[in-house]
């Protein structure tokens, strides 16, 4: 199971970062979301994998670590706020600059302006 989780996190990280390296805002935001999943999951599993032991007192003999869960819970909400912020930033950039490239202008146009 540990191996499976590691692979899942690895795949999400790799795909997220690949998309974040793209040039247009929307894929970057999608990549950011993927990467957020990976990071949240990563922090969560730092409490190690334990099935059937939710940290609710009185439901069982032993409990899994509640601290990473508390951290991740707020992280999920905050990353939603961040995603929304970046998304609206992208919209604003599109309105101001007339395109949706992260650098403000597509590559070929920038080449033109330099010449």
């Amino acid at each position, binding site marked *: *199971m*540990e191996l*499976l*989780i*590691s*692979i*899942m*996190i*690895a*795949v999400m*990280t*790799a*795909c997220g*970062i*690949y*998309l*974040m*390296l*793209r*040039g247009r805002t*929307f*894929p970057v935001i*999608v990549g950011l*979301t*993927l990467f957020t999943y*990976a990071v*949240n*999951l990563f922090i*969560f599993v730092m409490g190690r994998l*334990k*099935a059937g032991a*939710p*940290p*609710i*007192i*009185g439901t069982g003999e032993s*409990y*899994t670590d*509640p*601290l990473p*869960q*508390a951290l*991740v*819970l*707020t992280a*999920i*909400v*905050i990353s*939603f*706020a961040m995603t*929304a*912020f970046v*998304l*609206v930033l992208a*919209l*604003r950039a*599109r309105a101001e600059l007339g395109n*949706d490239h992260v*650098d403000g202008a*597509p590559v070929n146009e920038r080449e033109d302006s330099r010449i």
Partner: protein
Amino acid sequence: MTLLLIVLLPLFGALVPLATERYGRNICAWSACIAPLISLGLLISHLPRVLAGETLRYHREWLPSLGLDLSLRLDGLGLMFALLITGIGLLVLLYARYYLSSKDSLGKLYALLQIFMLAMLGIVLSDNILLMLVFWELTSLSSFLLIGYWSHQSAARKGARMALAITGAGGLCLLAGALLLGHIVGSFNLGDILAAGDQIRAHSLYPITLILVLLGAFTKSAQFPFHFWLPHAMSAPTPVSAYLHSATMVKAGVFLLARLYPALAGTEMWFFLVSFTGLATMVYAAYTALFKHDLKGLLAYSTISHLGLITLLFGFSTELAAAAAVFHIINHATFKASLFMAAGIIDHETGTRDMRKLNGLWKYMPYTALLAMVASAAMAGVPLLNGFLSKEMFFAESLHLEYMGAWGWVMPVLATLGALFSVAYSWRFIHDVFFNGEPVDLPKYPPHEPPRFMKVPVEMLVVLCLLVGIFPHFTVEPFMHAAASAVLGHEMPEYHLALWHGFNLPLLMSGIALAGGLLLYSQRKGLFAFYERKFRSDEKLVFEARVQRSVRLAQWVTDRLENGSLQRYMALFVGSALVVGTVGMWPLAEWTGSRALTPVDPVSLIAAGLLIVGSFGTVLIHHNRFAALLLLSVVGLVVSLTFIRFSAPDLALTQISVEAVTIVLLMLALYFLPQLTPNESGPKRVVRDVALSGAAGAGVGLLCWTVLTRPFTSISDYFLENSVSGGGGSNVVNVILVDFRGFDTLGEITVLALAAVGIYAMLHGLKLPLPNADGEGRRWAQDPHPPILSVMTRILLPLAIMVSLYIFLRGHNMPGGGFIAGLITSVALILQYISTGTEWMQQRLRWNYRKVAASGVMIATLTGLASWLFGYPFLTSTFTHVHWPVVGDFELASAMAFDVGVYVTVVGATMLILAHLGRLAQSTHEPPATNEKGEKI
């Protein structure tokens, strides 16, 4: 306590003139003098005790953990310097009143001068070397401001920058040196350091410490090869030059040599480093001074030369040489300050400082001429004046130096040579300015004597030169004795200053210097021509060129790294993270740890497969944005399933509701963005990015594996044990959020609200091109609000609100809570917006979501503050059990009110984001709203 007052009074004095400036220049000047006068008075009141050999101390802890204490000491050396600083400072304040033209702000100059005075007093009275460094830096900064006082002049700005660069760099060296000293001795207390001289000299770090400290001293005191900043600092107003660059600041370096003399001096290294730097400076600067046509330039090089002489004397490392150095510090301060003031008078009355124009002023201003001539003669070392006495001592000491061995004759010869140049330039100052024919094109003609009070400071200093020169025994000897004893760290040997020591070698050297200097000056025409041909180099140009070069280098580096492409930054960022991660992971010997693995079940395997396919799919079809979004939501769902699988029901609930909101948000935004991503990346770029992201993914996976297979200890046992008894809830995650770590949560909901407000601001006035078809060219549906959906969601709304309330209420004990309930409410409301349109909702739900979000944060904060009313720390929670008629025994915790705040913030922020984005779609998608009569609202 009075010691502290002496140092801090000028700070008060810095504020007064700024306030009194508007009442006229005289009132401003007199009020500015009050604070330094009191300081001077306090110093004089301590005079008898200090001259009797006592050291007064003041101590107060400041930052004991760093060894930085606010401790001051007043011994002979400190007293002598403090008297010079306050005494000459007062004269300069008076002088500046008449020097400064009415265009310039007198109050600003006074304020800066007194801040500088504070810094200098701090240096000379500190009993802690770190404290001394603080003041040391303050002198560099205030001198920067003073040199650049006429900030509209390019020369002033450049000169100020150069001075700051050199003395600032020296200050950093000194800081390193001071830290090393503290490391060697184990204390930054000056007393401890001075007592530990043998320990320091024997330590292996002694050479580097000495070099660093000397760098600090030499840069400050303008020693060769760091001398070049001082002539350029002459673009300061003349009172500043008289005060900083002759009497005080440049003396800080030699003061440091004197102060640390018992700790550092007495080795061969000290002798060679200090005396040869001093010697080179003295001879070179005296030689250069002769060729400066600018009055202040001549005086500046002469100052450098005399500082070299003082340094040289400290380098000699004999007891009498140290005494002579102290003596010469006093003498130089008096005659050089008066000369600068005289030069300022001449500049003020004639409008120029060029000695090729200034000739024959004797006729026009005989009184000033007389004063300047006496001071100049003191500089040349003419008998009956103070300069003669210290120069004699210097010659006498240069004759017997143990370290020089067979080369013993070198020092006296070069000393005489330096003195010879000194006579030549002093004579030039007198002859060129006051005699030598008639003035040539003076900007102000005819010149006349300055106002009465402008001469008073010069007179006082010149009288001092004479008094010390003729009656050294009665005037200066007690000060010198106390100061020299303080420098040496023990009682100074018996020595009497006297005019006449009989015919001896030093007298002969003086005679040679005087005669040779006059002879040299008589040959000036040829010499000047020779100098013009050979040695014309402007340090300012060289320095500026170097500054420019380093700026260009920095620019080049910046351009390499920062070309304005966010894509490149991202790649660099991932690359650096990879490097750092690899370096961190490298020492790991074993990937797999000792922890037992948990078994894999088929359902998990399928879910993992879904996630992997979803992730790769998102990447592969990311050019089709909408499809990629759908695949992304699959990944999000599997992540929430993973949370459930591993005992995190709260997380799963949160994740799934956030998932819904995020996807809706992304879809809304996608409406305004191109539906397809053009294929812009070339194969090279794709290969690079695949490599980068693949490596990053592998690294994170590997890290995860190594951590997961190792056992760990957690601090969470505390939370598990105290959740019920301390927080009144059995859902530990929720109790952590609203109770144990409530302060963190408060910060987090504040961030959430801020992000929402930021989004609101960015959406304000946003106009976007309106798409009327999707990515494949199909027009949008004609019916944006299908009736079945709207009817269904209307029924759903109360149910959803009820569910969210239920989730909220049980949150403290069962999975749920403010965050999740807030998200569920938001989802329910958003569904209404989607199905029936923003306008319809706005008519029915007239909430201002900004206020909702803000009031959520307010509720949470007030809950925290409420505990103050009961005398508990911020956010302390309490709980009790109440009996509800139907529900039964119910636990009510104050943390619940906090959770209400969280709930309200989440609803407000989420709706603020989504409703406004939706309204944006509405306003661009539909024609402007009209009322029944067809008018625009």
